């Protein structure tokens, strides 16, 4: 299993754990504050982006057909860029949606998050596309 896949899969497992713990807190009857722990869209994206998408990216990078004998995984730099931007983007989203009142700082955090996640998704597409091929 390549190093990038290990980072993707272990990070995905951490997101799964964190998201499910937050899910418990969100359902708890004795919340000490009226402000929810995280917003529902944040919780959902921790699961579908942080866990599911990240797991798919990591496993695809490992198991898809090799690009060439010299560069079996193709452009690994793009794969690492995807990993970094995906996780920075997701954390910025958590911060931006966690701020108690929507304002300029929260807005710009969400803009940065959107750009980072967009770069991550497109980096993965560009990195994996040449490996999707008939033998």
């Amino acid at each position, binding site marked *: 299993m390549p190093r990038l896949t290990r980072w993707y899969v272990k990070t995905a497992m951490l997101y799964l754990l964190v998201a499910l713990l937050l899910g418990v807190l969100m359902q708890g009857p004795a919340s000490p504050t009226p402000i929810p722990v995280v917003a529902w869209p944040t919780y959902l994206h921790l699961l*579908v982006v942080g866990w*599911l998408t990240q797991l*798919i990216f990591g496993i695809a990078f490992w198991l*898809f*057909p090799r690009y060439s004998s010299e560069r079996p995984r193709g452009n690994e730099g793009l794969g690492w860029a995807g990993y970094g931007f995906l996780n920075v983007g997701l954390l910025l*989203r958590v911060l931006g949606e966690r701020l108690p009142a*929507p304002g*300029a700082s*929260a*807005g*710009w*955090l*969400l*803009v940065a*998050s*959107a*750009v980072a*996640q*967009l770069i*991550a*998704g*497109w980096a*993965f*597409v560009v990195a*994996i*596309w040449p490996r*999707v*091929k*008939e*033998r």
Partner: protein
Amino acid sequence: MPRLTVWMVRTALLYLGSGIAVGAVLLAAPGLSLRLEARPLRPLHIEFLLLGWTGNLVLGVAFWILPRLGSEGRGHESLAWAAYWLLNLGVAAVGGGQALGLPGNVALLGRAAEGLAAAAFACHAWPRVRSVSAPHSER
């Protein structure tokens, strides 16, 4: 990788790229003071990522790696191809229909196509879900 898997996975990647782009617009809109109508864009974001991205990816990879049927290879490939076309017609009809404000029957037909896609793929894959050590007759 068989040809159908290539088609499904590449289609999935196109949906991933476009679905994330729609999601990025939705997420960034408040910070950029864009007054977007989220109602048509959100269903498009969900449809592209939930069924366009993960649906095509899962079916494509399943078609590739499920056990083969001995001399019959992957079995009724035409059913799997039908699933591919029905799924993507469905995603286009549901996502596009809602985003463009088309009559509700368009999305309804799209959902029906997605359901038929699931049925076609299940009929294709059902005999392939078996023990690889067992003879073909012992499914």
